[in-house]
């Protein structure tokens, strides 16, 4: 994880800008929902909607669009900078090696590292890391706002969230272990394939083709089994997680609906709750997958960390 901190520290400006934009986007979203709640309540009671309220709502929509655009721009900028640093860090590592060390490097192994670990870290940075961070910011902000708006409804509709959190931690651990095993098996298989070029003369001289062929087949079977196990576990755990994630919305409709019928909650507030439930339960629904990919990312990051020392040295 220290490598991730170093990468973020090196690109502190885009990272901070992204966090600020994400907080701003979340606040704009809450502001828009506040406007929407008022408009719905006014329509529901047959009250005239003043022009300034309409203008304010339109402004909120414009701000919301602008903040979404700024958010994707900031995250893409930060991602690209960090991905570039990662690739350059790997390249710098080779540039700092001595001739003897370079001679002893297995080209296949390094290529495999580039194709697997680094490209997976790269992929996570570009598709998951900042979405994950944005989800967390939205979750905290929205949950706090809903809690302030109606503590009872917020807590009741999100009780299953606690179960989901526990389940998320459990599934991500199981998926991560399976992912680690399949990665190890993949690394072994690639390392094996990479070493074939080096062992070829000895293999030919000592007539060891059958031995190597059997060993490679065994590595291939181990990798295949590990991947199948990982995918099977992921499918079972994730599908159950998806099913469980519907319960907060169902509870929201049930409890919120009863409150509206009893007159203790306005229709506008219930609409805002439903509208924003994605920020809470939606984030939770994606959490097992996100945490599992984060753990996978952490494993990959740990594997490439020794190769990044030259590229990510702290300057005092």
């Amino acid at each position: 994880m220290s490598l991730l901190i170093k990468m973020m520290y090196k690109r502190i400006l885009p990272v901070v800008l992204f966090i600020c934009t994400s907080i701003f986007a979340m606040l704009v979203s809450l502001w828009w929902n506040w406007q929407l709640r008022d408009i719905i309540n006014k329509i529901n009671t047959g009250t005239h909607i003043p022009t300034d309220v309409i203008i304010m709502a339109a402004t909120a929509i414009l701000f919301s669009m602008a903040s979404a655009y700024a958010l994707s721009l900031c995250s893409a900028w930060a991602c690209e900078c960090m991905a570039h640093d990662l690739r350059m860090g790997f390249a710098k590592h080779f540039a700092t090696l001595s001739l003897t060390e370079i001679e002893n490097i297995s080209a296949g192994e390094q290529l495999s590292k580039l194709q697997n670990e680094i490209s997976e870290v790269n992929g996570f940075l570009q598709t998951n890391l900042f979405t994950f961070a944005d989800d967390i910011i939205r979750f905290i902000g929205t949950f706090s706002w809903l809690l302030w708006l109606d503590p009872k409804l917020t807590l009741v509709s999100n009780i299953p969230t606690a179960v989901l959190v526990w389940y998320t931690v459990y599934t991500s651990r199981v998926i991560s272990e399976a992912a680690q095993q399949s990665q190890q098996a993949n690394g072994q298989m690639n390392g094996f394939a990479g070493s074939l070029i080096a062992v070829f003369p000895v293999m030919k001289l000592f007539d060891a083709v059958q031995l190597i062929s059997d060993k490679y087949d065994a590595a291939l079977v181990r990798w295949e089994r590990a991947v199948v196990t990982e995918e099977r576990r992921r499918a079972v755990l994730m599908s159950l997680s998806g099913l469980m994630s519907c319960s907060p919305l169902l509870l929201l409709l049930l409890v919120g609906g009863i409150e509206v019928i009893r007159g203790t909650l306005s229709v506008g507030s219930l609409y805002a709750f439903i509208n924003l439930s994605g920020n809470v339960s939606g984030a939770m629904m994606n959490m097992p997958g996100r945490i599992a990919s984060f753990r996978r990312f952490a494993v990959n990051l740990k594997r490439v960390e020794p190769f990044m020392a030259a590229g990510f040295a702290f300057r005092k």
Partner: protein
Amino acid sequence: MGIRVENLRYAYGSKLVLRDISLFVNAGEYIGIVGVSGCGKSTLLKLLAGLYQTQSGVVEVHGACRPEEIRKNVAMVMQNTVLFPASIKENITCGHPMSEEVIWQACKAAQLTEWITSLADGIDTFVGEQGGKVSGGQAQRIAIARAIARNAPVILLDEATSALDGDTGSAVLAALDSLTRGRTVVSVSHRHETLANCSRIYKLEDGRLHSL
């Protein structure tokens, strides 16, 4: 039987590295070839090992002329020892059926017994990808044990003693002594002093062999 090389020429594309090489090594003789890096020593050794097909001239090793037959009579130890991603035992046997006695004799001659018995998995210990889980000296001694277990009449050493140091070095030298005793040996090196045991030493320069 020994080794007979006559008018051997070998080129990588248009670059001629060996020109009209002729060499006769008697059975049981230990000869050395010295030369600077890139002069063609390893190419000559690979031709003697049957790893390369001759382009012109004759290479006869222990009565065999075809590469696949030559390889049966030869064992080779290199400076950058390459181990298979397998156990110590499999690295010695190369997957061929071999009695436990032969394997352990090879280990003993290669000064490996003490180290192997100290390992939790003993002779079945996995050496890692490209021998990553064993030290350079241990890897070289495993390669020597492999060559001993092969029991080939001709031994080829490619810079086998060039990167030795301290205690590991003496163990490898003792192992090499066991390997080469009573066999036909061709040892190549870029350093003259590592060929002290040789009865004859040649210098490979400009693709030609010169007796020293």
